[in-house]
């Protein structure tokens, strides 16, 4: 068995080169100017100051607002779906959960692309509306289409952890709550919901983190003018070419993630006591 110790060596080298070094490069770029030429490299905090400009602050605010809305919708829809699924027999649950996961296996871009033909001005919904004599509605390139796309894409990430914690739950606990005189609502709130909090925390974190850093769905369903953090970073690297500013935003995004993951971990630990 001692011989197997060395099996980690390739990955130590690999993870240093392809995980650590890229992060260090982002840090380096974020605190310098001069782009790619190492000759006129100069340390500065300008890039971070620039993020404070109202136009960029706005992008952050918009991203967080969208993330928050998406997360709340996913939580409401997802909790009910997970709860409803958990009420079926184990066999049925396995099949239903499989159906929740299947869309995750299909390329996000392709699925989002399909929404365009459903939502566009002369798309399926609007043709149907005109058919029954109603006025068409503009849905594409609005908050609505972006949120719809995000919810469709991210809902499984909410349902699965919540379902996992609900299905792990000892059914006799709920019966015990009824037995102790709890009303339906009380039993749900004090027992079922309380015990599913770890799953909720997991789902909320995942959906929120994925939705604030996305840039594909806003671009496809929100159009070019719909700028979120992800699109801002993309622009710096792809069209504008200000890698230093782009790195600064990325670094900030990474730090935000780290903070949020740590907070949820702490919450999870506090709530984790209920698991036992």
């Amino acid at each position, binding site marked *: *068995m*001692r011989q197997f*110790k060395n*099996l*980690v060596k*390739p*990955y130590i080298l690999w993870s240093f080169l*392809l*995980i650590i*070094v*890229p*992060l260090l*490069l*982002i840090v380096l770029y974020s605190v310098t100017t001069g782009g*790619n030429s190492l000759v006129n490299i100069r340390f500065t905090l300008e890039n971070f100051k620039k993020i404070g400009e109202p136009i960029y602050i706005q992008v952050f605010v918009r991203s967080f607002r969208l993330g928050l809305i998406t997360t709340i919708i996913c939580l409401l829809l997802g909790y009910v*779906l997970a709860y*409803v*699924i958990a*009420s079926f027999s184990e066999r049925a649950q396995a099949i*239903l959960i*499989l159906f*929740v996961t*299947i*869309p*995750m*296996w*299909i*390329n996000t*871009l*392709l*699925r989002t*692309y*399909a*929404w*365009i*033909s*459903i939502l*566009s001005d002369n*798309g*399926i919904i609007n043709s149907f509306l005109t058919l029954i004599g109603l006025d068409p509605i503009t849905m594409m390139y609005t908050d609505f289409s972006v949120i719809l796309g995000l919810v*469709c894409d991210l*809902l*499984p990430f909410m349902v699965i952890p919540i379902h996992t914690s609900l299905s792990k739950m000892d059914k006799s606990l709920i019966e015990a709550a009824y037995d102790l005189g709890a009303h339906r609502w009380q039993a749900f709130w004090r027992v079922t919901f309380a015990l599913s909090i770890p799953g909720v925390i997991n789902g909320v974190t995942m959906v929120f983190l994925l939705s604030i*850093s996305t*840039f*594909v769905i806003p*671009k*496809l369903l929100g159009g070019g003018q719909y700028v979120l953090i*992800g699109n801002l*970073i*993309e622009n710096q*690297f792809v069209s504008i070419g200000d*890698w230093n500013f782009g*790195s600064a935003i*990325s*670094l900030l995004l*990474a730090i935000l*993630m*780290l903070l949020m*993951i740590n907070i949820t971990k702490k919450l999870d630990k506090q709530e984790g006591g209920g698991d036992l």
Partner: protein
Amino acid sequence: MKKHGKLFSILYIALCFLFFYVPIVVMVVFSFNSSKSLTNFSGFSLRWYTQLIEDQEIMAAVYVSVSIAIFATAIATVLGTITAIGLSKNRKVLRDTLLSINNIPIMNPDIVTAIGLMILFSSMMIAKGYVTMLLAHVAFCTPYVITSVYPKVRSLDDSLANAAMDLGATPFQTLTKVIIPSIKPGIYAGILLAFTMSFDDFVISYFVTGNGVQNISIIVYNMTKRTNPTINALSTIVIAVILVALIVGNVVPAIYNKRKEKKVKMEENVN
């Protein structure tokens, strides 16, 4: 009251699934449409499928997506599996450090991982294209393999490996004949995860590619302005492949297990 609840449950699930599957169904249906319209179904045809096969740009992207997914999965599986096995035999400090580093690409937003790799490749003067895409895919797939294999390795009884060596197996034979068969479920989960991650990836591929090398996601991203039913044909094929894979992955083992059970029972009766 109870019946009411059940009805509501079924209705709610149906609505949610409608929401999940409407885009997929729309894609499949309109891939067989005879006209270019994405809203009116004017008749069945395989026109978009023939166009798909003739479209060299899309076929090249399919080739890139599939081949990158296969190679990246193969490399990530080997690298991730041996790392997971090695990890459990190392000191706690090294184990914890490497596992936290391994978590970075999983936790980090894809876009941060993507630009990190992009800066890395350009500062190392590596020409962006197929190779950089493959390296990047291995980089973000391996952590998923490690996280699915490592728990299996941890729960592995040490004495199994000892037993193999005791019976004359060299360390390498122990690895191939005992350890790997014992952690197979974890490896399979890792393979599945790595393959879908790679096949589904857009963000990282988009930033690290170059020289006109595109995968399916990149092509779709660049095509948004002009609706193109060939993409629906492509999606339908992808969905079909995934469904077949899921059926093979879920149903076949179930049938196999049932048969095996039956066989054992029959043999017991014979004995």
